[in-house]
């Protein structure tokens, strides 16, 4: 960010500690900041860093690696299902494959990748230098990584979870769950939930307190609004699944009877707890994806979004409504009529705020001048497919209708339209959009177009026929089907189409690898976008901005294309960020920001060890508490640093 217009420095009284940026020339300023915010070189630096960009980047890479594993599981399943009574994959492996596919996609890919982008982008988009709790951020990544590695290593040793990503009891319970398989599943959930909760807390604190001066609530970029709402949904939904997975572990390990009807427990209790989390989970994935759309669209139609307020209110109401729908996963369990009507109505109602967003996006396109770059193609592909998913969602909200399609391929089609069409398409668009910012290089547009069309066509050819297959009576989670069922041809078409999707994703990864080395140099703002992350260099320096910007408009870079006003008075010889009021982002305090530390990693190892041990013995919780405490004590040990100032 060059050309400083400069607000007068507000805190320049004599006698204050440290060197301030006030009046400092740009070169020296950058040298000071680079030193204060540096990450040590080499492997050790990789372990101790608390830079949100490095952590966000490795979160994104890890999540995409899990996407590859889950995608390959899906491909294996399609191989088995291509023909009736095929014998390629037996029921034992097949059940593990679909469980690992669902579990990995939901817990290890979709939610983490959305969090990962938030970790990377939020500080840049709101004009600060790091997230609110940088070490918690590092900790959350290590916990997530160990949970994911654990369940996949278990799979490699034929202890892969096999009771579905929802692990219904009693099938996953002490009597019918096979070996330690459900335990690994339940503990993996605990790991990933701990990390998700940590990220949610960071995002909320960062967005509430660390926005650039002047970024009042009505100037927050819509993407940031979307991750803020998501963070609150995580905060309220995830504890439900942590409770239920812990109760499952307890039933299995120490013989509690939460879910055992013979001992006064209840098998349905699991479903209520799981779906109280499980439905909001879908929105935890979908809401940030709509944020991507709201961020990408204005850039490629060259106008601000239409209906900013309407979209914000829609996001918030989706967040609330997502907690009122869980029972629509349980219509087949038999409910009283009144309850059925309530959950039908609430499930249909959530279509209203989703509809508002779609209408506002279309109006935005109408009023702008569309540029058909790859990110825009993915946004359009998103609208095309997501509307189908939303409409089939309205169909399954109806109790009687759901009783025919529940647990069939119709539902498989529905939620892939919502999750792939509704979340993965915007995500791929987001990768094309922000890759230049993250790496400094552009992705190839040529490969991007091929990537889009293969994934888009392959996806629709794969999943649209599943609607029909479901109505024709094919249930989900079957490893084979009889030849006389008449489902064979459709399944063959689906399996062949899935290869097209696979080719599309192969091109995507190829594009990433090639462009990383040979991509065109991006520059600060290659798309001519309006939000703050494009004001800094690509890739951004460790301190994000050499001077923190002051926001005077909802589209800062369009309103002040040449020079952004900036804040002065922050220390440059130590890590410091600016904290302001929640509503108007009026600066209040300079807050020290945590330095690199090895303790988040060591604490994560201790926590991971305790979780892993508790699969085998309850004593792991007792003895594991000791290293965990040591880790946390060292992590939080006071260093005699100054308190927040002014």
């Amino acid at each position: 960010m060059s050309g400083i217009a400069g607000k007068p420095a507000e805190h320049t009284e004599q006698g204050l500690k440290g060197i301030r940026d006030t009046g400092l020339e740009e070169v020296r300023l950058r040298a000071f900041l680079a030193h204060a915010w540096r990450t040590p070189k080499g492997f050790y630096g990789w372990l101790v860093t608390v830079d949100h960009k490095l952590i966000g980047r490795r979160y994104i890479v890890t999540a995409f690696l899990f996407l590859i594993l889950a995608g390959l599981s899906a491909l294996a399943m399609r191989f088995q299902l291509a023909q009736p009574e095929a014998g390629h994959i037996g029921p034992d492996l097949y059940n593990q494959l679909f469980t690992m596919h669902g579990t990995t996609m939901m817990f290890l890919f979709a939610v983490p990748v959305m969090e990962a982008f938030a970790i990377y982008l939020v500080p840049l988009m709101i004009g600060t230098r790091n997230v609110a709790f940088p070490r918690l951020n590092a900790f959350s990544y290590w916990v997530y990584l160990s949970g994911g590695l654990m369940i996949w290593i278990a799979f490699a040793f034929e202890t892969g979870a096999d009771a579905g990503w929802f692990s219904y009891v009693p099938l996953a319970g002490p009597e019918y769950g096979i070996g330690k398989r459900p335990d690994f599943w339940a503990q993996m959930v605990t790991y990933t939930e701990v990390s998700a909760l940590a990220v949610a807390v960071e995002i909320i604190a960062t967005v509430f307190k660390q926005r650039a001066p002047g970024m009042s609530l009505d100037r927050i970029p819509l993407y940031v609004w979307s991750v803020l709402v998501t963070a609150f949904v995580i905060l309220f939904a995830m504890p439900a699944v942590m409770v239920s997975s812990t109760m499952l572990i307890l039933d299995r390990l120490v013989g509690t009877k939460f879910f055992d009807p013979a001992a006064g427990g209840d098998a349905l209790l699991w479903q209520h707890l799981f779906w109280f989390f499980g439905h909001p989970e879908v929105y935890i994935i979908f809401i940030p994806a709509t944020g991507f759309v709201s961020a990408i669209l204005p850039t490629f139609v060259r106008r601000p979004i239409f209906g900013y307020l309407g979209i914000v209110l829609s996001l918030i109401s989706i967040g609330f409504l997502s907690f009122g729908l869980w029972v629509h996963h349980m219509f087949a369990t038999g409910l009283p009529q009144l309850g059925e009507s309530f959950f039908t109505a609430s499930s249909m109602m959530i279509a209203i705020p989703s509809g508002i967003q779609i209408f506002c996006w279309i109006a935005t396109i109408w009023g702008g001048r569309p540029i058909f770059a790859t990110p825009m193609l993915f946004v359009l592909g998103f609208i095309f497919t997501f509307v189908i998913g939303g409409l089939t969602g309205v169909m399954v909200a109806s109790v009687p209708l759901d009783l025919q399609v529940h647990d069939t391929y119709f539902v498989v089609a529905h939620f892939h339209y919502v999750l792939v069409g509704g979340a993965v398409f915007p995500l791929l668009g987001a990768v094309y959009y922000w890759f230049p910012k993250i790496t400094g290089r552009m992705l190839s547009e040529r490969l991007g177009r091929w990537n889009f069309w293969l994934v888009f066509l392959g996806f629709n050819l794969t999943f649209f026929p599943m609607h029909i297959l479901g109505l024709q009576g094919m249930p989900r989670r079957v490893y084979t089907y009889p030849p006389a069922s008449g489902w064979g041809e459709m399944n063959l078409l689906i399996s062949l189409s899935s290869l097209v999707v696979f080719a599309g994703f192969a091109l995507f990864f190829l594009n990433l690898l090639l462009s990383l080395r040979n991509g065109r140099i991006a520059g600060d703002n290659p798309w001519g976008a309006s939000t703050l992350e494009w004001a800094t260099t690509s890739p951004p320096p460790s301190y994000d901005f050499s001077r923190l910007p002051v926001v005077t408009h909802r589209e800062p870079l369009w309103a002040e294309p040449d020079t952004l006003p900036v804040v002065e008075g922050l220390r440059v010889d130590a890590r410091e960020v600016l904290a302001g009021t929640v509503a108007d982002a009026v600066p209040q305090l300079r807050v020290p920001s945590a330095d690199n530390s090895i303790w988040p990693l060591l604490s994560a190892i201790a926590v991971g060890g305790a979780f892993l041990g508790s699969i085998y013995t309850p004593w792991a919780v007792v003895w594991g508490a000791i290293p965990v405490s040591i880790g946390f004590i060292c992590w939080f040990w006071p260093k005699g640093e100054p308190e927040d100032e002014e």
Partner: protein
Amino acid sequence: MSLAFTCPTQILTDIVPGKAAQQRLRWVSAAPMLVLAGCGDRQSALHAHGANARRILDLIWSFSAVAVATWLLVMLVLAAALLHRRLSETTRSPLEIDSHQERRFTRAVGSAIALTVLVLVMMTIASFFAGKSIASLSGTETLAVRITGHQWWWEVRYAGNDPSQSIVTANEIHVPVGEPVKVELDSLDVIHSFWVPNLAGKRDLIPGRLSQLTLIADKPGIYRGQCAEFCGYQHAHMAITVIAESREAFEAWQSRQNAVASAPGGEEERRGQQAFLSTGCALCHTIRGTPASGTVGPDLTHLASRRALAADTLAMTPGALAAWIADPQSIKPGAKMPRIALSADDLNAVVTYLGSLE
């Protein structure tokens, strides 16, 4: 005719070459009734043959129509938004907003939302009334069937007027055509879901809970159903057959099922019964009228009257029965039935004996 299961004619042709079948034609005892019934329809929610399923099918078609219309409308507007002609002022700043246009947008989006709400309310009401009309079927039943889910088969019980009148069978239920039948559902192990898409929506079988469903079959036929809630290894091979037939045929079936097993009628059958009772089969299976009284597996008293084996994994033919007894684990891996070592002669004898249990 491509069907979800074998037609009786196929059963007949399967059987003729079989040694056991040549001795006794009891294998085909079910055939006359099936021919009468005709082959039902492929397992599908799109071919409704009962009030419950038909009501839902109406809903599926009307909701699909609304969905297709809505989607087309949205895509049309999106296409117009992308392609409509724009004034060529390329240098305009992105922040220059035409306030007149914004007001039109507000009106358009507002109307779209109002329309959405209206359509959703109508769909909710339609769904409510469909649910109500399905619920109104209950209470009018003339017959009750109790179905208990097991990994991976269905235990079927008909309660008679006195205990001796009750019927126990497996994986196949018979219902009189046109009469509402109450299906009571529970499970003794994990959660299953009872689903015969041509006749009705599904209902879960949950351990510790009793749920129910009302079935009506409008026309005689054979309807295939399948477990719809993932229940472990052989979830894919847990099918059930509903045979809808005239009241007379149903009652005839009922009285045949009610009888104890026929005594072995020849040397081969006697040998088969002996082998059955002495090799462990009887620990898990009941054959009423013999000492075999295990309750782990399906009741076999009238095994040969059923159309299929192992929850519709195999058609009921001597060859299939022999293959199933010889090595159940290669046909249905994970099934609870173990492989029992029988000599070839014993195996043939057991197959002949079981084949006589019509």
